[in-house]
């Protein structure tokens, strides 16, 4: 039981947290722009690499570099939207999806050119020493930072969506674009705000992911499947659902290798990434609208 908590449940929570930050952005953006943003993982990578530069230039912990990552990823997201997505606002969804695929390739190449192709780690500020609590439970400081950081950001995002004028306008536009326009809501401004929120969450997810493992130019792209699995599981276009979906996917990936029967892992950790895919496919067959009713068109 203790092993289960320490080595499967808590890491699952960490993974779920990282997915949650990414999936919320995917879900919010889908609600507003009605397309699957395939470059979202690479926005995560970009944030992670900005922090890497901060760490090596200013010798600060990557967590203190998060504001710089947030700024970098949000500005980049707004720029990408202006250049690559805005011209296609009235086009068919598939045009935007392909465009985002192109953006994703460009971003990855940009990262490779700027920061190189080899594996990198944050050299300072990531403390992997374990804290012991409640007797035998252990969690690394780094993991604690990720979990607390994620839940704080989820809370902040919730306050933004529930209490601020811009946040409410975002939900309104996600409900009905035409009516938002008729009501006088400045829809382009809402779109920009959505990119800032989505880009910021992605940046933090990238830094967390980098601190938990290492950095490589494909790091974000590799998260795309679980991110979308989480968003779909939660009912795409529903950011709160995406959080729940992300936790389910993160937990399932980690817990799938728990030795439930005997001493062998139930599923070899090598198949971890297959778990998200499996859950997504089952979900699409059994309940395509997601756990919480997704958008219908």
């Amino acid at each position, binding site marked *: 039981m203790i092993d289960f908590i320490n080595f499967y449940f808590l890491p699952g929570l960490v993974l779920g947290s990282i997915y949650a930050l990414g999936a919320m952005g995917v879900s919010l953006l889908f609600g507003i722009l009605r397309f699957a943003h395939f470059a979202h993982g690479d926005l995560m990578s970009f944030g992670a690499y900005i922090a890497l530069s901060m760490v090596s230039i200013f010798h600060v912990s990557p967590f203190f570099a998060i504001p710089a990552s947030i700024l970098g990823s949000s500005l980049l997201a707004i720029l990408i939207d202006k250049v690559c997505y805005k011209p296609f606002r009235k086009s068919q969804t598939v045009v935007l999806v392909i465009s985002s695929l192109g953006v994703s390739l460009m971003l990855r190449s940009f990262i490779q050119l700027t920061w190189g192709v080899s594996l990198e780690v944050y050299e300072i500020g990531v403390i992997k020493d374990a804290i012991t609590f409640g007797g035998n439970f252990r969690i690394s400081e780094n993991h604690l930072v990720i979990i607390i950081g994620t839940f704080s950001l989820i809370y902040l995002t919730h306050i933004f969506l529930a209490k601020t004028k811009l946040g*409410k306008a975002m939900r309104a536009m996600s409900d009905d674009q035409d009516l938002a*326009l*008729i*009501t*006088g809501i400045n829809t382009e401004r809402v779109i920009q705000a959505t990119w800032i929120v989505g880009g910021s969450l992605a940046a933090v997810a990238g830094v967390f992911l980098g601190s938990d493992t290492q950095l490589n130019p494909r790091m974000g792209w590799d998260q795309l499947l679980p991110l979308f699995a989480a968003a779909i599981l939660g009912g795409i276009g529903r950011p709160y659902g995406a959080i729940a979906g992300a936790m389910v996917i993160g937990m399932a990936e980690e817990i799938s290798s728990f030795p439930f029967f005997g001493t062998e892992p139930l599923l070899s950790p090598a198949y971890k990434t297959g778990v998200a895919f499996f859950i997504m496919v089952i979900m699409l067959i059994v309940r395509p609208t997601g756990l919480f009713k997704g958008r219908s068109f």
Partner: protein
Amino acid sequence: MKKKIHKLVVENIVSGYGDMDILKGVSINISQEEIVVIIGPNGAGKSTLMKSIFGLIPIKEGNIYFDEEEITNLDTQSIVKKGISYVPQVKNIFPNLTVQENLEMGAYLRKDNYLETMNDVFKLYPDLVEKRNQIAGQLSGGQQQMVAIGRALMIQPEFILLDEPTAGLSPKMYNDTFESIQKIKTLGVGVIMVEQNAKRALQISDRGCVLVSGENKLTASGQSLLMNENITNLFLGGNE
């Protein structure tokens, strides 16, 4: 000092979807504190007229004036800023927002304090008071219609366009809605209303306008339209 009475004038507009012209030269005009009712068979272009006035589909010929200022093909946001609001026939609330949030969105363009206007809306529709924190999509059809009209009133419009506000309502809701529309008029708002149930609408109207195949067949006072046998036979017979 007397408040200036604004006028909205639509002159011979031609508009439609793509190459297809639906409106083939339609004119109407309205002042504040008037109710103008647009009647006509299904597919006549009544909703299209509303969308054209509101800048949602391009006007190919003709002009629209707000007082002396031309607002033809102005973008929707600017039209809202001028003080015109629009309640579409369907999909006219934000279903996942609460009643109060729907009203707040209606005031999106206002920089001043809109709480007084919200109180006015709740006075107009007392049923909404206790539902203010409920998700609008879960309300009854009649209550959703109140939210929709309430939302459009939040900008304190000079003119409000209502597209079939009573469609599908229960008889009680139907009456309540008509009463509220008369109250809206007395607040100084000009109401342009599309109605299927033309008889009742014409009774409360200052003017009626019969639209057939994208053309004004007749514009006259509500009373004289009600007396007109042709109109009665054509459009009002089925509404007994």
